[in-house]
């Protein structure tokens, strides 16, 4: 097997008095959608934040494409694109200005910047609202801006934290289609959710965490096992622990 895009090894993290992660390990490969599943408060967001260098682990290691999050955080951030749970955009900038700002901070400039911004705008079908100020955009349009700014530098690893939780049916569908398309481009897509239906449809492999521990990990079919669907399997696993 080739080198994993993301390798998480015995991750531990305590926030305040709460031990959020208690030795989490998993690997995500290029060209797959990897699901990080668990109920609210299980530690999904904390895990993703450690992978993307926003938080430091108390124990364990994380490598992204061979770069350690503790030893080379800027190299890691250069190679990842993250769509956070909160769709925060700069309201007084236009949709295009929002994307360009993040593209420039990722090192793009000149004709390369224009080409890549144009490319992502076309890919996500955002042309109709590019000049609009972000404050006047709908939630779905803001989510597209958030995705666009995360992928404009064409990162190898994409991480999406509960990307459909605040979206309507149509916008959610577009996000799911985007993830499938990114997988088709050979990207490693890590997707955290508590919506089991989405995970079952999209993920090649999943890891279920509960109370900061991995309770199941492997190909989606294997984790589902004999159960009717992934939700049943999830409930059985969570109730058991």
């Amino acid at each position, binding site marked *: 097997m080739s080198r994993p895009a993301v390798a998480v090894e015995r991750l531990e993290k305590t926030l305040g008095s709460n031990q959020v992660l208690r030795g989490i390990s998993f690997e995500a490969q290029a060209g797959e959608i990897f699901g990080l599943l668990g109920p609210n408060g299980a530690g999904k967001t904390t895990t993703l934040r450690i992978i993307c260098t926003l938080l430091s682990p108390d124990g364990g290691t994380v490598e992204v494409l061979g770069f350690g999050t503790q030893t080379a955080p800027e190299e890691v951030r250069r190679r990842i694109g993250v769509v956070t749970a909160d769709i925060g955009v*700069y309201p007084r900038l236009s949709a295009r200005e929002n994307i360009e700002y993040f593209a420039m*901070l990722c*090192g793009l400039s000149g004709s390369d910047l224009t080409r890549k911004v144009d490319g992502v705008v076309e890919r996500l079908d955002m042309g109709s609202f590019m000049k609009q100020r972000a404050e006047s955009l709908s939630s779905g349009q803001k989510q597209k801006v958030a995705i666009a700014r995360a992928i404009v530098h064409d990162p190898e690893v994409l991480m999406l934290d509960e990307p459909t939780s605040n979206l309507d049916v149509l916008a959610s569908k577009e996000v799911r289609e985007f993830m499938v398309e990114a997988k088709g481009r050979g990207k490693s897509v890590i997707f955290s959710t508590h919506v089991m239906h989405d995970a079952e449809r999209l993920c090649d492999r999943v890891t279920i965490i509960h109370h900061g521990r991995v309770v199941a990990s492997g190909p989606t079919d294997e984790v589902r096992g004999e159960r009717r669907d992934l939700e049943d399997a999830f409930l059985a696993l969570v109730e058991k622990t």
Partner: protein
Amino acid sequence: MRESLIVYRKELQEILRDRRTLMAIGLAALVTPLVLLVISRVSATTATQTYTVGYSGDIPTGLDILLRATSLKLEPVADPAAAAKAMVDLGVAFLPGQIDEYYDPSRQGAQIADVRLQTVLGQYEAAQAAAALQSRGIDPGILTPIHLFTHPLSSPVQAASNAFLSFFLPYILITMILTGGFSAALDSSAGERERRTLESLLLTPASRSRVLLGKIGAITTISLVAAVAAIGSMFVALTQISIPGPGGSATHISLSPAAFPVMVWLALLIAVSFSALTLALGTLAKSFRQGQAYVTPLYFITILPASLILFIPDFNPSLAYYLIPILNAVLVLRDAIVHDTVAWPALAVTTISLLATGALSWFAALRLFTRESLLTKT
């Protein structure tokens, strides 16, 4: 540096689209000259206003002419003491060989009328004494055996102008730098948390110190723009205001040559320090509103030193006092305005003190900006 410039440009772009900041700068540019014009009108009116003297008895010959020439209007009343309480500014009872004066010291008009009456009476008595001596063939010069020749080292009119500027200019400079950068600093720190853009910003490869540098640069720029707008409009207003000089001439209030570069240098130092400080305080806050609560006390802290110059204009402290931020800037600027000189040791200590304040604030802002709880506590 490239990342800092990108952040700087984006922050300025956002600030210039923010009504709150633009209104603060616009108001500063409008209100400052308005306040000055009102002050000058009130002063001019007070200086030339006619005050009423209610009197009883016979006015000594010639004194009425002197009183009227000093804008004291004479009005006969039955009871000068009762009249001085409400009807007139001053009550005077002319008795044989005696004058009884009644006035209410709590009224400014009564105080001014009293000073004018005392001056007129002094001149009248001197004239009467001189006339009496002359009629007896004695030289009235014996009344003034010692002649006093005054040699003012600076123009009294310019001194009055400098005294006014030494209070007003530091006050406007400091409050406008703070007001101008206030909104921008909170929007750039607490605002990032409130609209949930902070996490995405910190996910870019740009280092946090460079992001912070860009933000401080933008806030400093807008603070200086606000100060320049307010001071510029103040000097435009001052060209319309004149102070009456000797021989009926009029002098305009102007800034001494040494004060201008000192003011520019201090404005830059204060703007950088305040930007870092307000950004640090804003980073502590979870929302714009909470940030306002943290930053508002800064107004009072900064207004105090400027007020000190108003109440103790001759305050000449030792060099150690110049280590106190803001107070040092006010003192250095006052010295440059009043004496038209730069006290280099004081300026050096002030520069070190303000740079140290800026550096400490920058360090605090960076520590706050890199702490994990910035993201984990909402």
